[in-house]
């Protein structure tokens, strides 16, 4: 069975997401104490905006309780790219408090943080976030040794590379992304600040417009820059952060390869978009299992659905830029 893993942002969202077909939920949390001390700029997870996070452990406990009533597990993201030494005590306290809520898993990226939380022996599962950047089978073994039971593979892997990793590591669960946000840069290897609008930083660096002033001598390079310009409606610039990326064509292979879970990104996205995404994925998985389409047929079906969804302006047409797995196109 392929699990559908969806982001949850408040206790009241549990039931609608469950009704849509979510099998597991994940969330982040910035409580008032963390917010005062570190602000969302140094979020304990890779969403540096408070609106994309639960606000208290009480809220987390409520999410867990309501999810467990639906037999849905919940993981808490503590996947900041790194923690500094001065945060170790606060991180440990977060992990302990989270475990007390009954949360099923903690999702981490930083090696030091993983070692710390593993050492606390909290009885919760440890997941390795995509922010850790696990690109090969030996890296999977590395994190398994620390205590990870699941790896969330980064967005920048080809389907064939996912297959190689999954095939080589039967004893561990894998998640991959299927819908919504992606940056052209690798999340786990990016060192830019996110967020910070409240301190005057403005938009993320990856969401700015740039002039590429290299004046490439090669005509093909000039043409490509113009094409990119047209794709993003910028003036000879690059808008990197792609909020509407789709990887649904890849579901056929992912289901066949028994990848444990497919994930929707978007803790900050409105609930209706997340519900819609879960329903879409759920329906497509059911289609693969029950109607048994051929791979080519499935990809054609998906493209015709995706290009005519309510997101049509964002998704249409399928291109290299709005696709998690453009090698399928």
């Amino acid at each position, binding site marked *: 069975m392929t699990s559908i893993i969806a982001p949850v942002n408040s206790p009241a969202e549990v039931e609608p997401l469950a009704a849509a077909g979510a099998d597991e939920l994940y969330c982040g949390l910035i409580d008032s104490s963390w917010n005062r001390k570190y*602000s969302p700029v140094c979020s304990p997870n890779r969403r540096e905006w408070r609106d994309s996070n639960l606000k208290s452990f009480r809220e987390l406990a409520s999410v867990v309780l309501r999810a467990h009533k639906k037999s849905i597990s919940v993981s808490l993201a503590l996947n900041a790219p790194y923690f500094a030494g001065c945060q170790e005590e606060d991180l440990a306290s977060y992990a302990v408090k989270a475990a007390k809520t009954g949360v099923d898993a903690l999702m981490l990226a930083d090696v030091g943080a993983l070692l710390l939380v593993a050492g606390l022996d909290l009885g919760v599962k440890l997941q390795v976030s995509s922010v850790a950047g696990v690109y090969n089978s030996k890296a999977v073994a590395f994190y398994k040794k620390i205590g990870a039971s699941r790896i969330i593979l980064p967005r920048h892997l080809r389907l064939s590379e996912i297959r190689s990793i999954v095939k080589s590591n039967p004893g561990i669960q894998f998640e991959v992304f299927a819908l919504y946000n992606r940056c052209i*840069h690798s999340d786990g290897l990016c060192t830019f600040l996110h967020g910070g609008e409240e301190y005057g930083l403005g938009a993320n660096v990856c969401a700015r417009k740039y002039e590429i*002033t290299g004046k*490439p001598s090669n005509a093909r390079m000039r043409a490509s820059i113009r094409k990119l310009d047209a794709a993003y409606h910028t003036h000879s610039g690059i808008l990197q952060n792609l909020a509407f990326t789709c990887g649904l064509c890849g579901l056929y292979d992912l289901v066949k390869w028994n990848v444990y879970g497919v994930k929707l990104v978007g803790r900050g996205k409105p609930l209706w978009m997340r519900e819609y995404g879960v329903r879409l994925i759920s329906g497509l998985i059911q289609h693969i299992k029950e109607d048994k389409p051929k791979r080519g047929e499935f990809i054609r079906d998906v493209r015709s659905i995706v290009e005519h969804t309510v997101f049509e302006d964002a998704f249409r047409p399928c291109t290299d830029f709005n696709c998690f797995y453009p090698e399928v196109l």
Partner: protein
Amino acid sequence: MESAVHVRSIRDAGGEYDRVYLGDEFCERLLPTVRQLEKALKISDKKITLATPPLTDKGLAGAKKLLSALPGKTEVVVNDWGLLDDVKGLNLSPVLGRLLLKYHRDPRVELIDDKIPKGCRKVLHSSALTQERFVKFLKKNRIRRIELDAVPFEVDHGDLSGFKASLHVPYAYVTTTRQCLANYFTTGRFGIRECRKQCIECSFPWESQELAFDMVQKGNTLFIEGDSARIPQQCDRIVHHPQI
């Protein structure tokens, strides 16, 4: 202070350097072939460090072959935890690469220093090396050298006793990707695709009217101009990158 140079080919290394970095920290496609590496080892009169990038399963297999060609104790810059065991297993000297040493390299850090809470400021000016467990883990894994970027603001790397550090100049890496724009600019196709290593021939300056700093793209990676004068105490080596 040891002076090193990172070059594509051993023939590009000038005589003034003590050490040559070969390989690539960011892209597995830019690793040398075993034959190229063996030739470099044969003709070089300088100490060699092999830099390795994040690796896919295919890249990992290629990197392992390179490791086998290295004499014992040769330094290998590791930017993927998946390679660490192989480096140790072959009695080579693992070095913590810039991509595995986590800290913010965003020049905008200093713009918000006086507005953010003290705790946040401390984090933004600290690297993961301030974590006791991480440092112990590195030592346990025989990592004794750290590769640092010359970012244009103060960064606390903690007590690095037992480690030596290399500082990369004049550019600091800020972000990287496998969806290589240099490849896109030269082939017209985006995504993780075959390439002809066109990036070796060109770099792309990025300018934004909205930001107070410019960037330069070399290959799949964006760099900012670093502050080469800010040399951390533990640093005993400068690594020059004339080909960015």
